[in-house]
């Protein structure tokens, strides 16, 4: 799960990670009121969406008067912001963050993420703040310093020294401030079960202070149960409605732009099914993993979600039953044909636990649109042919 910049900064503030002062707003008037409350003579109006690259897309603007804050907020609120991370369809801006202006001397990058190979969190820092970090990693990887922290010992002084010497911070007072910043950010990462934290840029001000000018946080979904306060930060409007509806039924769904709807058990086989369709000259319309607890209701729901997509010309149900019992899936297909108008051919391959019973159920039901398949290759070939109208 991801959260907005203003929410990440609320968490940072709780741990003493320094940020500029700011207040979130839903309307231009609220934005102007926030600016007045913050005081000063320069403010930043920032679109709040779950994507980076907001500045380049026109979602971050500088204002030099309260009136300008109101004008900019009215322009940004309701705009569809397109950045390199939103995809071409962009994202609707529903909130703006009004922040006091900062005196920027240097821009740095600081992030924390899991290093899968070392099996511990790694702190990444770079002098190339404000740039796309992916680009820095590609073009000048030596400019990214990585310091892995073993959670058994936590953030120690030597971790901090590696960071400041790597970044070329020589002033002792600044060294102390940066190490304090990084150690607090590490705590934010660990104690909140974050999956990712990125601050880009982290700035050094004219007076040698470090401030998180931006904040991006993602969380380990498996750990949200013990962080209700983070679960409360969920912004449903940022999530795909179909994916969300699917998840409520224990289905994992991702829309794609092809023609063959897929319903599969297990993420690996679901991806493998998409790959096979592609290999045989077809195009998958979605990824859909029905999970290990599939029953008639969830399968029917899966059909409903797949068929919402007008591009779908055929559906390939590919189940290798282990925990999932094939007879339940077969019953689900029968239910679905009663509940939903299944107007495209459905190719069904059911193998594994109770496959024979399932075949019997489908045979007896004798549904016009249902085409049985013997294995993965046969099913994919039939689905590709059906989508082409053959």
């Amino acid at each position, binding site marked *: 799960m991801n959260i907005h910049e203003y929410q990440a900064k609320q968490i940072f503030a709780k741990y003493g990670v320094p940020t500029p002062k700011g207040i979130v707003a839903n309307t231009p008037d609220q934005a102007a009121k926030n600016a007045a409350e913050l005081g000063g003579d320069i403010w930043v109006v920032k679109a709040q969406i779950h994507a980076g690259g907001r500045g380049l897309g026109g979602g971050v603007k500088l204002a030099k008067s309260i009136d300008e804050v109101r004008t900019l907020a009215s322009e940004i609120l309701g705009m569809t912001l397109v950045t390199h*991370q939103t995809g071409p369809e962009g994202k609707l801006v529903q909130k703006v963050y009004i922040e006091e202006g900062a005196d920027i001397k240097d821009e740095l990058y600081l*992030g924390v*993420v*899991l*290093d*899968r*190979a070392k*099996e*511990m969190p790694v702190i*990444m820092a770079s002098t190339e703040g404000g740039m796309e*970090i*992916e680009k820095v*990693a590609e073009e000048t*990887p030596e400019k*990214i310093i*990585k310091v892995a922290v*073993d*959670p*058994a010992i936590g953030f120690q002084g030597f971790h901090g020294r590696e960071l400041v010497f790597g970044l070329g911070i020589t002033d002792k007072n600044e060294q102390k401030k940066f190490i304090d910043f990084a150690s607090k950010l590490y705590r934010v990462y*660990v104690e909140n*079960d974050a*999956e*990712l934290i*990125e601050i880009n840029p982290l700035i050094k001000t004219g007076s040698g202070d470090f401030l998180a000018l931006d904040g991006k946080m*993602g969380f*380990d979904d*498996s*750990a949200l*149960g*013990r962080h209700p306060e983070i679960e409360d930060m969920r912004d449903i409007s940022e999530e795909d409605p179909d994916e969300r509806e699917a998840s409520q039924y224990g289905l994992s769904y*991702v829309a*794609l732009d092809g023609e063959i709807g897929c319903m599969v*058990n*297990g*993420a*690996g*086989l679901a*991806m*493998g099914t*998409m*790959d*096979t*369709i*592609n*290999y*045989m000259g077809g195009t*998958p319309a979605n*990824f859909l993993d029905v999970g*290990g607890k599939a029953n008639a209701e969830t399968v029917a729901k899966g059909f409903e979600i797949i068929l919402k997509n007008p591009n779908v010309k055929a559906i390939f149900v590919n189940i*290798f*039953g*282990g*925990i999932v019992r094939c007879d339940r899936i077969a019953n689900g297909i029968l239910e679905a044909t009663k509940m939903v108008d299944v107007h495209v051919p459905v190719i069904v391959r059911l*193998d*594994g*636990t109770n496959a024979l019973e399932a075949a019997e159920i489908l045979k007896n039901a004798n549904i016009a649109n249902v085409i049985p398949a013997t*294995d*993965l*290759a046969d099913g*994919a070939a039939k689905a590709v042919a059906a989508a082409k109208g053959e």
Partner: protein
Amino acid sequence: MSILVNKETKVIVQGFTGSEGTFHAEQCIAYGTNIVGGVTPNKGGQEHLGKPVFDTVKEAVEATGATVSMVFVPPAFVADAVMEAADAGIELAVIITEGAPVRDMQAAKAYATKHGMKTIGPNCPGIITAEECKIGIMPGMIFKKGNVGLISKSGTLTYEGANQVCKEGFGITTAVGIGGDPIIGLSYKQLLPMFEADPETEAIVMIGEIGGDLEIQAAEFIKENITKPVVAFIAGQTAPKGKRMGHAGAIVSGSAGTAAEKMAALEAAGVKVVVSPAEIGKAVKEVLSK
């Protein structure tokens, strides 16, 4: 022969009396797995599925001599259960539970490693030595005894691969579902040499996925150390980018973890890489008839 487990292996079940634990332990016993007991706190002294229940892993190990534990406890308690097993001297914990927090698994695995306990999973189908010992949730009937070892991140692709191998007239020595979580126990690099050393295994099937760089590490390892033929499939060639972890994870591993990149690395290591999982069986036949 086989790797890690066989019909002699004494297995206990943690989370024995829960609904998942009960259902799958029963299936394992029916398959022939030597399940010697189980652990559920506060149910010690009872009998379940005809086997003794213990309050702690320590008691279970002392009473039964078990060396392997199959873990079914709910996600929030997995790390505790795994560390308890390591502390009690269990040699291998097979963690089936899905949805354990990454931070918990990090701590549990570090502790297990310190105590010399191997782990498989979490969020995996488990391990099966065909017609001898099933520790997990896979449908046992598709694994016929034979000469092919199998390692897979994905559960259902394990079944798909094993089924095709058997349909081509071959069979499985041992199949291991390693799971696809960010932190997992035994991986390709540790399992490949076990199959290389196993006299009955003549070929190895390796099934991977996008994300992380375990398959890249495996490719490097195969090049230097594995003489038996390897067939590989990487799922997710057509998967949309950036759906799970953002790009920062890819920066750490020094690679983007794409299917194309992994397939190229494996091919360069002399592995027979198939583009569709439907080709796994045929590819095994091809490498074994050379």
